[in-house]
């Protein structure tokens, strides 16, 4: 027993060393190997132990169904497999008026969790947030996320203390598919201790707890992941005849990773597909990059995304649409894609 522990420790130490040399986080190594294996398509030797991902300092080892994959490859890779399923996850909205987008994003995640199970979901909120941001509307949730009204339970607590108590009690339950706790601002009561309690209960029950903080500030909490969500301009509705002008299509979110043990900070634009109930990453429609693709046109660095409509502007004609998300400058991290200027 002791020898194997020592051996494991050695392996982890080596892994850290490699990570240091490669300039990445040690926690991401395992996911990276797997991703590479998948990319190669011929890695039978790696399939022996493919389902192991190191979560934290190599001490805890979890299988991939500990994660909820969002279905967006880049985001999943950045989070090394998705959001943790048995944990507290923080979802922030910078302003209360973003509550629609934040709630929409979390409900999309809940919709992904609920696929194939009929367990109820509990949404706890203080009276303040339900007054300020509106009460969840079951008709809209059913249409957009496929969550049946009888699957939803709401708990409205007049005080934050009561809301936290309900959340702690609910986080212990395995009969709930997920717990959403929504509060406003950054109250003192919701400190490191309170979030640790929530996190520990979520871990032991194996159910996700989503902490929605509207107009909250990034504070030290026990949640391993914090995502910052805001609304993104929607695309036009797609019809057979092409995009319908001036229409508002599928809900879109801008998600940035505010905190994660495994990911570097990054920003993603996601679109929710209400028909198939899955996320799609928004490919930039126009190729006007935030960073100029090249200086003076001499360096035809490929712009990301597919060039759709007007290929004949300057050097853009030569761009290969398959180039993917190559960084246009070396110092630009790979996971931050150029966004639409508007």
């Amino acid at each position, binding site marked *: 027993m002791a020898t194997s522990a020592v051996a494991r420790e050695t392996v982890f130490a080596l892994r850290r060393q490699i990570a240091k040399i490669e300039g990445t986080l040690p926690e991401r190594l395992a996911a990276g190997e797997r991703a590479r294996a998948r990319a190669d398509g011929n890695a039978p030797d790696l399939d022996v132990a493919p389902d192991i991902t190191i979560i934290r300092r190599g001490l805890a080892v979890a299988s991939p169904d500990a994660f909820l994959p969002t279905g967006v490859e880049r985001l999943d890779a950045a989070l090394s497999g998705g959001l943790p399923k048995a944990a507290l996850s923080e979802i922030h909205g910078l302003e209360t*008026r*973003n*509550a*629609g*987008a934040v*709630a*929409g*994003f979390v*409900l*999309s995640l809940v919709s992904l969790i609920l696929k194939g199970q*009929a*367990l*109820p979901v509990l949404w706890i909120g203080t009276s303040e947030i*339900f*007054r300020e*941001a*509106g*009460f*969840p*509307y*079951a*008709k*809209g*949730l059913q*249409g*957009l996320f496929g969550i049946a*009204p*009888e699957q*939803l*339970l*709401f*708990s*409205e*607590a*007049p005080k934050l203390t*009561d809301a936290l*108590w*309900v959340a702690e*009690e*609910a986080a212990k*339950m*395995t*009969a*709930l598919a997920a717990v959403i706790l929504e509060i406003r601002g950054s109250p003192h009561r919701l400190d490191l201790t309170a979030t640790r309690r929530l996190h520990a209960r979520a871990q032991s029950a194996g159910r996700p707890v989503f902490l929605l903080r509207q107009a909250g500030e990034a504070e030290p909490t026990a949640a391993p992941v914090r995502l910052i969500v*805001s*609304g*993104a*301009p*929607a695309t036009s509705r797609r019809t057979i005849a092409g995009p319908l002008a*001036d*229409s*508002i299509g599928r*809900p*879109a*979110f*801008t998600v940035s990773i505010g905190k994660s043990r495994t990911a570097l900070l990054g920003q993603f634009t996601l679109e*929710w597909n209400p028909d198939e109930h899955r996320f799609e990453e928004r490919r930039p429609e126009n190729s006007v990059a935030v960073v100029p693709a090249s200086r003076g046109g001499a360096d035809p660095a490929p712009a990301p995304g597919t060039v759709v409509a007007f290929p004949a502007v300057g050097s853009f004609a030569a761009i290969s649409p398959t180039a993917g998300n190559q960084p246009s400058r070396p110092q630009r991290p790979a996971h931050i894609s150029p966004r639409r200027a508007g």
Partner: protein
Amino acid sequence: MGIADARAMHPSIDIVEADPEADRRLLEGLADWCDRYTPLVALDGADGLYLDVTGCTHLFGGERAMLDDILARFFQQGFDVRAGLAATPGAAWAAARFCGDRIIPSGEEEALLAPLPLAALRIEPDIRASLESVGLRTAGAVMAAPRAPLARRFGASLLLRLDQALGRLDEAVSPRLPVAPLSVERHLAEPVVLTAEIERLVEMLAVTLKVDLERRGEGARMLALLLFRVDGAVSRIAVGTSRPLREPKLIQRLFHERLTALEQDIDAGYGFDLVRLSVLAAAAFDMQQADLTGETEDDGADIALFADRIRARLGDNAVLKAVAVESHLPERAVATIPFSEAPQRTTPPKKPDRKDAPPATIFPPERPIRLFRSPEPIEVPATEMPEGPPLHFRWRRALYRVTRVEGPERIAAEWWHEAMSDPVTSTRDYFRIEDADGRRYWLYRQGLYGNPQVPPRWFMHGVFA
């Protein structure tokens, strides 16, 4: 006697205004306390209580011991009490008011009443006055007189009261509180003060209760815990359950939450010397067969218990469930009702079947994911066209620039509900709007243009994802 006369006789007299309300409350408090002797307690006028002790006396060591116990305890609480115990309410009333602390054996009512004045018969003062005017001054004289002329001259109520007092007619005493179908109690030699001890007692009582519930094949839907304080105050703590319940551990947990929530309100004082657990409402208990691992199929039980605990602590509206309502008005289409009132599903939910699903409309109207409880007024300085969407709007003091619009969707009022409202001013045109930052809102314009008296108003009703 007026106040001035009284003051003239006793200058130091203390004058207190009569407060019938407070007297009434005190009497009700005493009635609550008398619950310890019998569940059937009724108020009698402004100064009396009826206790129906049928079948209860042996619990207190016989009639005399019970009467002495009642009198002693009231005396210790500082009340001057007179009591009578008889087979009929009328005789007991007369014994308490005219004889004092007597127990009238069954059949001796006539001997008791005969020498008493007419007031002992509980009759109206004018009937009493007219009886006295013809020389009938005691109850015995009335009993001796022929009945037919009495009824003709003084009305049926006199004979009714007489018959009731003598036990010829039954008289029902209507209890103040509904009688619990089941209740168990424990008298304590040493009063308890600590909440933890009360909780332990609740569990012990619930164990006893479970046997009775099992015998009846029922579970409790509503439970009450009565704590009788040494000095006469009674605390009544009720919890409701969303499913029939009989497990002592679970009952104890529900009361634990309730007692925690009420910690500030319950004053233990010198302690409680009687704790009673009553089932106020019971319902048939569906037995669930457990499988070999000891677990049952019923997956909703956890949720129900969880909801009950939240409800015990935070009130009825703490856990809500959304229920679709047949209405096209967005705010009426979904009702949120307390979990315990929601229709219960005892069988596990069925997998949604595509064939059975009602045919969905091809383009269902898009609804927001959050709806404001009351639509918030917004300022719209300008619209593109008179009936069109706004270009800008001001909501909660912030200005929003509209970049894209879908709509309008016209939603008219429910004229069959609101007969009084004007169809023109209550018509709403809804717009889906996206602002410059990519937030999507649901606005509506109430009323139509062209009406100079009532200009249309704009409201924010919900937000989209």
